[in-house]
């Protein structure tokens, strides 16, 4: 039983990403989209939490929402994978449940 967790708010705005990463079980997938893409950037004060979580969960980021915010792939934390909307749909299919951290 695997879960896809979606986070659509910036970690500098709300605690959703931190709560998600604290509670997501090993083998879960996490998709960062909308303002949530800021959580995928390296060199920020939240990066360490995300880098640490990458050992246990797979983290994805929505490319269109990165582009809309001027976040280049070169700014991403190593190990985070970029997906498009088709990839977003595939993630919801590959995992048994989808949990939105609103």
């Amino acid at each position, binding site marked *: 039983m695997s879960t896809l967790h979606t986070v*659509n708010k910036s970690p500098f705005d709300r605690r959703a990403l931190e709560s998600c990463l604290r509670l997501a079980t090993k083998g879960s997938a996490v998709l960062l989209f909308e303002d949530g893409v800021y959580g995928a950037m390296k060199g920020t004060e939240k990066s360490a939490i995300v880098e640490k979580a990458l050992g246990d969960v797979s983290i994805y980021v929505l490319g269109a929402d990165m582009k809309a915010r001027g976040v280049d792939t070169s700014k991403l934390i190593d190990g985070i994978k970029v997906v498009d909307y088709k990839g977003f749909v595939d993630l919801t299919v590959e995992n048994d449940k989808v949990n*939105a951290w609103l």
Partner: protein
Amino acid sequence: MKFGIQINEGPYNHEASVSALNFVRAALDAGHEIFRVFFYHDGVNNGTRYTTPPQDDINIVNSWSELAEKHNLDLVVCVAAAQRRGIVDEGEQERNGKDGNNIAPGFRISGLGQLIEAGIQSDRLVVFGD
């Protein structure tokens, strides 16, 4: 696979409605079925045909109506959230003695049971919004 979609934000809160539109389009393109789209809380504001954005703006309400017509989508607006925010169809107009209605084409007003049913009948329920 069968999807239920829940949208909790209006077209001008953040970007939940556009994200959901893109997700639904991608799911349909991949051959999946959309069992229902349920508009809850401020999400009911996606269902008024009186929305008139500037012409060079994306018209999110029309986008939903057009997508619904093309793919025969079931777009359901929560009745209690709609009453609070002035989203009215003919039935609600008559029931509440209003002087008009504003529901957009392809949308219908119904109750929370429709969300529960979408959760039961769909393989995945994907929630967008605040």
